[in-house]
């Protein structure tokens, strides 16, 4: 449809369209949930209609015909509901929910240019058409094409038509200009015009906005009569119009009268005063490119770093000599902090957009598993950084699936256990002490601690003679070696387990834990930073270098005794810690740093949770202190470096690298020179998630 110009940036429009579709589908989903819960009012239905309508509108422009066809029927059903020809019965609501899911699938297929099978969602289509057919007087809307699109019929021989046209005042009020209609007519062929001025009153009685004139045209044209009707298409209801085919060649109308017609001044209302161009008033919200916001966040980050440097320098000044200076530095610190918070708030978005997708996950899986499950969400308006939200979807989906797959029992089992047939999954978000806490709880069977512990011992995850606490047992399920198991573990996933969830949550600087009561259900609690732009870190030194270790990753730190360190052939040194053996990674070796402490017993060992290798010890020279640091991307300024997740500038102006603890073991295993592998880290995480889904 839009292909006539090569300059037409169709790709860009497509991108916008699909971005918009994602938003519209979220809106659709959220409002359908409201409707299904019986909570929505009239506006809910309108919002649903508009979302479908907009999706359809764009789809037409890009020629996504199956999307147009499906949304067209859905729109018809919604329209019938708006006009109360169809009631929102439970069946209809169910149908709408399924239709919305199918619509999302069709949009995704269009986006990825996949072709869906012809029978896709045909049952839903049929269902909707049946509901529509059952509704009295409601018919599916007609084809989207009409009006101007009615095309040129084959050219015929010249014919003469007499057209008598008398505009009503309403026609002029709608800004339809008679003169322009004449021009349209003239395009069709030879035109002669006779003006009828008989209704024109005396000048004193003349209403400037009223219509007094009428015209009689004779048109010689090869175009069909429909082309003439088309000219008058917009004004038919606001004028007297007759179009008569003259069999004989028309009598010539005098040239004089024809001329008088062209002199007819436009009868339209006088144009408004010349423009004083004023900038349009902006609406309540504006759309801003994320790049611009990121640049702002970055700049504020720089500002905060400079401020920290000034504060550090200022603290060296004697207060009595420079009171104003020190006061100024304090004021600057305050403003910088507030500025940073405000900027972060721009990026903050409600978690609603992610939460809204979960009911579908539940519906799909519940249907597959033959379980009856409802999902209850709360705290959707809790706001969190956009980048965090984007990466929240996968772990959350996984947790919900786990709860449904392994937590919630089958309806019969539930009844036997004295529970309602329908299980409940509760998804909530709340902000607590500068972090966001997301909980997924279910009223399913809970963790069987005996089995979990037995299996953990079996796999050597818990040494014999060690008796973990209940909480420790529950959290064993996050261990990588645990979840790939085939034994009934209640929570382990389908080949991919909670360790992946944990790793992803950690990648976001978050923590995850589980509380469970056997027979009564489980609750997973995920705590995330409000932003990824600031990290709470432990500042450590290695030789002359300074590193930041994210606090969330640190389990403990200690200075070992020489007897605790044992070399293992081919594996490097291990640290004996309360009956466990943890591999040691020396940062000075990983990053080839000279003049560092080489003996762990002279330095400090930080115990962190690594990716794949469980807990490991990282050997550093000493701990310098705890500090909140602004994360600067290495990728953006230099290149991705394995084992490093970013950099920051400390108060003393020095650059410190932020350790990617999840990966630090792997660089420890490679020896010698550090190589730079761009973007490897992010890609790998994504792949893991795909497998997890």
């Amino acid at each position, binding site marked *: 449809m839009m292909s006539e110009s090569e300059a037409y940036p169709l790709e860009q429009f497509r991108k916008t369209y699909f971005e918009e579709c994602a938003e519209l589908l979220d809106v659709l989903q959220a409002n359908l949930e409201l409707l299904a819960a019986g909570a929505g009012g009239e506006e809910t239905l309108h919002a649903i209609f508009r979302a479908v309508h907009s999706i359809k509108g764009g789809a037409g*422009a890009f020629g996504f015909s199956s999307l147009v066809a499906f949304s067209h029927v859905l729109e018809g059903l919604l329209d019938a509901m708006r006009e109360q020809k169809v009631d929102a019965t439970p069946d209809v609501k169910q149908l709408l929910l399924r239709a919305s899911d199918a619509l999302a699938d069709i949009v995704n297929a269009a986006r990825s240019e996949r072709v869906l099978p012809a029978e896709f969602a045909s049952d839903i289509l049929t269902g909707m058409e049946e509901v529509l057919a059952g509704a009295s007087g409601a018919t599916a809307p007609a084809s989207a094409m009409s009006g101007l699109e009615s095309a040129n019929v084959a050219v015929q021989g010249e014919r003469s038509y007499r057209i008598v046209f008398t505009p009503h005042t309403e026609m002029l009020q709608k800004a*339809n200009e008679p003169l322009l209609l004449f021009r349209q007519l003239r395009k069709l062929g030879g035109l002669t015009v006779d003006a009828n001025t008989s209704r024109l009153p005396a000048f004193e009685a003349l209403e400037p906005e009223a219509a007094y004139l009428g015209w009689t045209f004779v048109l010689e044209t090869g175009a069909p009569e429909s082309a003439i009707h088309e000219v008058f298409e*917009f004004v038919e209801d606001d004028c007297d119009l007759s179009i008569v085919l003259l069999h004989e060649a028309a009598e010539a109308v005098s040239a004089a009268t024809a001329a008088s017609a062209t002199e007819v001044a436009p009868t339209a209302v006088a144009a408004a005063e010349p423009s004083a161009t004023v900038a349009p008033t902006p609406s309540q919200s504006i759309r801003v490119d994320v790049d611009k916001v990121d640049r702002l966040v970055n700049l504020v980050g720089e500002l905060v770093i400079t401020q920290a440097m000034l504060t550090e320098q200022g603290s060296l000044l004697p207060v009595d000599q420079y009171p104003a200076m020190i006061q100024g530095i304090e004021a600057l610190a305050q403003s910088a902090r507030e500025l940073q918070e405000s900027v972060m708030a721009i990026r903050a978005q409600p978690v609603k957009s992610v939460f809204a997708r979960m009911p579908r996950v539940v519906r799909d899986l519940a249907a597959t598993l033959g379980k009856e499950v409802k999902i209850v969400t709360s705290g959707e308006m809790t706001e969190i950084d956009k980048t965090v939200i984007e990466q929240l979807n996968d772990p959350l989906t996984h947790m919900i699936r786990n709860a449904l797959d392994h937590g919630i029992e089958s309806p019969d089992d539930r009844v036997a256990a004295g529970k309602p047939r329908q299980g409940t999954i509760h998804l909530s978000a709340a902000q607590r002490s500068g972090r966001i806490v997301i909980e997924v709880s279910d009223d399913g069977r809970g963790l069987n601690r005996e089995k979990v512990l037995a299996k953990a011992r079996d796999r050597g995850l818990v040494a014999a003679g060690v008796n973990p606490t209940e909480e420790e047992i529950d959290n064993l399920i996050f261990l990588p070696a645990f979840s790939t198991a085939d034994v009934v573990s209640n929570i382990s996933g389908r080949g991919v387990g909670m360790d992946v969830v944990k790793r992803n949550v950690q990648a976001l600087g978050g923590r995850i834990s589980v509380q469970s009561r056997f027979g009564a259900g489980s609750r997973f609690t995920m705590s995330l930073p409000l932003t990824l732009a600031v990290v709470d870190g432990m500042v450590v030194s290695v030789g002359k270098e300074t590193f930041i270790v994210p606090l969330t990753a640190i389990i403990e730190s200690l200075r070992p005794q020489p007897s605790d360190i044992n070399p293992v052939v081919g594996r490097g040194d291990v640290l004996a810690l309360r009956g466990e053996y943890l591999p040691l990674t020396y940062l000075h070796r990983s990053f080839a740093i000279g003049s560092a402490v080489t003996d762990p017993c002279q330095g400090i060992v930080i115990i962190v949770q690594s990716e794949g290798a469980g807990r490991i010890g990282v050997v550093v020279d000493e701990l310098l202190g705890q500090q909140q640091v602004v994360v600067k991307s290495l990728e953006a300024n230099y290149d991705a470096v394995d084992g490093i997740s970013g950099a920051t500038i400390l108060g003393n102006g020095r650059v410190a690298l932020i350790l990617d603890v999840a990966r630090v073991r792997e660089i420890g295993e490679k020896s010698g020179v550090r190589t730079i592998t761009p973007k490897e880290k992010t890609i790998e995480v994504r792949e893991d998630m795909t497998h997890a889904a």
Partner: protein
Amino acid sequence: MAKRILAVDDSKTMRDMVSFTLRKAGFDVAEAEDGKAALNVLGGGKFDLIITDLNMPNMDGISLIKNVRAGSSHRAVPILILTTESDGTKKADGKAAGATGWLVKPFSPDKLIELIQRVCP
């Protein structure tokens, strides 16, 4: 001086497409995402033509047309309806409210320009 057109649609895709088509044809274009926003924009400047969608949140196209025709600053300006609305009643409502003409989405750029020239030379 280039004619100024206000394009009103809640869909950014549609606004982008309409704006692009119009700008390419040499028009000066402003955008609004619903009827309310459109009235705001109209209050701040002078436009030669309004192109509006019908289904929009806050204030729909019909109310926008009624408002414009009832006001003083733009009541004589042609208003085109650009809508996917395929059943005739809505279009008739738009017409009754004071629309000058209409075009059904999906629109072809040529048709849009032709239509504009028809109502606003």
